[in-house]
């Protein structure tokens, strides 16, 4: 592979060298979080975390473990830099991001350190593209302080079923209300996990029962109703489309965590996570 013929001498200058036989394994995950231009890359010997935020209210993280990469060499314990995600995605898909079997773009991604560009070497069918993406001063990602110990309610669903729900949601509604309850608070339904919208043409409710085949796990401590801005949650559907399972959690403050399990082309598993703040004025709906 021409990429591996990069001279060793040059490699030594890099503090981070990673390579992937199939660039789609990275680009797909990044697409799932690409709702803003700026992405912070946090690299440790365990792997790569890419963070995107919007309005200080929503944060998406894509995790790519070190063993997903064919090569993952890091010379420092922690490397952080920020790049323009849209530009990076265009670079990763420079050869069209072909999905047909047998054709894949090989990637080698290198970084020399603070102030240097992120360098990508991409190769497909003997054609090599070199991209130098200028890095930016990384912004400190918000700590949503979402601890598993504070989780009040948690459900794990097949992404299939949530995809269906999201595709039918009334997008004229400004809010998406999520209700999770251990009991049966509603008269007609045995509603335990309920998505509601309040749009211009009326309200709509989408509910799941505990016994549904789509429900893998249901662990609710108390009834919780929270509203989230639809505009903030909408980008998460990109991750939903890619994923096979999704874990929906809320903590005692009403913060929402959506964890998506994504299986890549090679059958390996990666995660994408979304955090979202609840909308402040939670009124009791009578």
């Amino acid at each position, binding site marked *: 592979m021409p990429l591996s013929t990069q001279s060793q001498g040059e490699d030594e200058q890099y503090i981070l060298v990673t390579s992937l036989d199939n660039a789609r394994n990275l680009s797909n995950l990044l697409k799932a979080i690409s709702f803003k231009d700026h992405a912070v890359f946090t690299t440790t010997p365990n792997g790569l975390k890419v963070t995107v935020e919007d309005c200080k209210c929503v944060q998406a993280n894509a995790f790519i473990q070190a063993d997903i990469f064919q090569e993952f060499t890091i010379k420092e314990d922690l490397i952080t830099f920020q790049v323009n995600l849209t530009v990076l995605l*265009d*670079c990763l898909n*420079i*050869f069209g991001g072909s999905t047909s079997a047998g054709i894949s773009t090989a990637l080698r991604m290198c970084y020399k350190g603070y102030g240097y560009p992120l360098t990508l070497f991409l190769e497909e069918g003997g*054609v090599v*593209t070199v991209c130098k993406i*200028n890095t930016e001063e990384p912004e400190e990602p918000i700590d949503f302080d979402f601890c598993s110990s504070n989780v009040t309610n948690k459900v794990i669903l097949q992404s299939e079923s949530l995809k269906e729900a999201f595709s039918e949601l009334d997008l004229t509604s400004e809010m998406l209300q999520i209700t999770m309850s251990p009991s049966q608070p509603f008269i007609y339904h045995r509603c335990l996990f309920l998505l509601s919208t309040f749009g211009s043409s009326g309200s709509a409710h989408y509910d799941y029962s505990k016994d549904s085949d789509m429900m893998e796990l249901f662990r609710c401590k108390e009834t919780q109703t929270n509203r989230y801005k639809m505009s903030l949650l909408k980008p998460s559907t990109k991750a939903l489309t890619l994923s096979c399972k999704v874990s929906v959690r809320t903590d005692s403050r009403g913060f929402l965590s959506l964890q998506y399990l994504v299986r890549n082309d090679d059958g390996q598993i990666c995660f994408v996570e979304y955090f979202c703040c609840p909308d402040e004025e939670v009124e009791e709906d009578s």
Partner: protein
Amino acid sequence: MKFRGKIIDVACLNHFSRVITTISKLTKTCVMRLTPDNLFFVLSGKVTNGGVSMWCELHQANFFDEFQMEGVSSEFNEICLEVTPENLSRALKTVQNAKSVKVKLTKKHCPCLTVAAELPSLSSNSRVVTHDVPVEVVPRSLWHEFKEPSMPDFDVSIYLPPLKTMKNVVDRMKNLSNFLVMEANLSGEMNLKIETDLVSVTTHFKDLGNPSWGKTSGPIRLPVPQINPNVVEVTRMTPHVSTGDAASQDGGASQSRDPEAMAEVRVDIRKLQQFLVGQQVNPSKAMCNIVHQSVVHLILLHDDVSLQYFIPAVA
């Protein structure tokens, strides 16, 4: 002034329609030149179209089963029409499965190219669909603007990589930048480069091969390994180089030029994209001539169609 052509063969009809569609992707209007042997679609480089020029040549005999024309005079046996290829393409698309298609120059409320198609019918009555595509007749005094462009005195001539790959790369680069640098050398290497505040991207193509427009005593020929009509095409395409000083400079430049040295042109990326988007069939030969910092001359050769496209350099 008369023109009447008839296409019966479905394959010819499809092919003709594809050529027109390709042209419609390249330009909104162009001039259609009819001669007893050929059809030409010409766009001359004007500032209004960004200085891009185009020359597309078809042998009528390869498309038409009947072809009758009478030019403006016996001395100038040609017809020049300004057409909107998009309209012509649309008319041809709707008659894809016709038994026969006639193309006629008619005088309705204005001059028109009338596309009359006889469609298959189950009953004995035939169904005929007629499209009138308005055209403008270009007066004799303006014909000189639509002459075949001369072969530029290029620094490097090189075969293009697969157009699909090139299109993918250019499409992405267009998302990132408005301008692209195309550079190539005589060692079969071509690079596409963009550079902005955010990113610099270079795609390296190699082993492309350089056509040797070797100088012979006769016209300059492209040595094509197999016997095919392209040889004739190229020969015919480059009469201007054959006798002028350009030819000797050419041969000289190519031989004395450092094979590694790049000739480069910075172009409007949209113009290159347009050219790549339009390609509906893979040509048997695709090549490009680069005049350093001046112009890119793209040439596509199909069996019976040749297309030349010139993109000027931008500062």
